[in-house]
């Protein structure tokens, strides 16, 4: 972008954001391949990432891309993609798509007591 600053503390202006987003989204999709195909997390995250990836591929102007993504500045979108990547890696360890670990005692969530 042609800005000198993002306006946010600690976030530098990204030069070549399209490239960075392309790399991140490809990495996320690669990590998601290691999750069982029927897991809801994989389904929804693939949907989100593919949507954003298509927008990034089609739109070359940074300002218009920011408006279309409607998710704050492009640098924030990059940070969010990095977070999603780290989350996907941790999800492989935790496997949250398995059935419930343990049922609570029957009076645990009753309110009023």
């Amino acid at each position: 972008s042609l800005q000198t600053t993002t306006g946010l503390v600690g976030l530098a202006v990204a030069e070549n954001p399209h490239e960075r987003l392309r790399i991140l989204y490809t990495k996320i999709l690669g990590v998601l391949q290691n999750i069982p195909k029927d897991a809801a997390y994989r389904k929804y995250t693939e949907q989100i990432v593919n949507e954003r990836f298509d927008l990034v591929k089609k739109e070359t102007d940074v300002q218009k891309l920011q408006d279309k993504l409607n998710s704050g500045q492009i640098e924030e979108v990059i940070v969010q993609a990095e977070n999603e990547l780290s989350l996907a890696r941790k999800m492989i360890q935790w496997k949250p798509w398995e059935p419930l670990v343990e049922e609570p005692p029957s009076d645990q969530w009753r309110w009023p007591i």
Partner: protein
Amino acid sequence: TVRPKNEVEQKQLCAFGEYVAEILPKYIQQVQVTCFNELELLIHPDGIIPVLTFLRDHTNAQFKSLADLTAVDVPSRQYRFEIVYNLLSLRFNSRIRVKTYTDELTPVDSAVPVHQAANWYEREVWDMYGVFFANHPDLRRILTDYGFEGHPFRKDFPLSGYVEV
């Protein structure tokens, strides 16, 4: 006068609650939306770090801010303490509550690796209720006096304490 019911927000919160429950069935025991449009996720204690990390990092959630971390003492239950996390999403202007349970002796995973803000809140819960947080960087008393014995916010702790001042 009665607060007007916001049906749209209620529906959105219900939908989001079902979305999260579908993604994390291993840890989420129950999801409820109060009549004041507050979404609550009721969690198994093993799932604190996975659920909080998911809510912080996922694109559709982005609950980056830990607003509050407290505990509730209900002595009649088997797991008497209920740990409550209140999260705020700045991107989507939305709040969510995550609740877990534990008893006096079972440690609970600390939320500090996920949210730095949890540091002093967990020290307060330890001091006032006696809930031990595993992997906390610095778990010590924060509000009670230096040699104080007991956990004041428990329901079986008398109002004016055991020691005369």
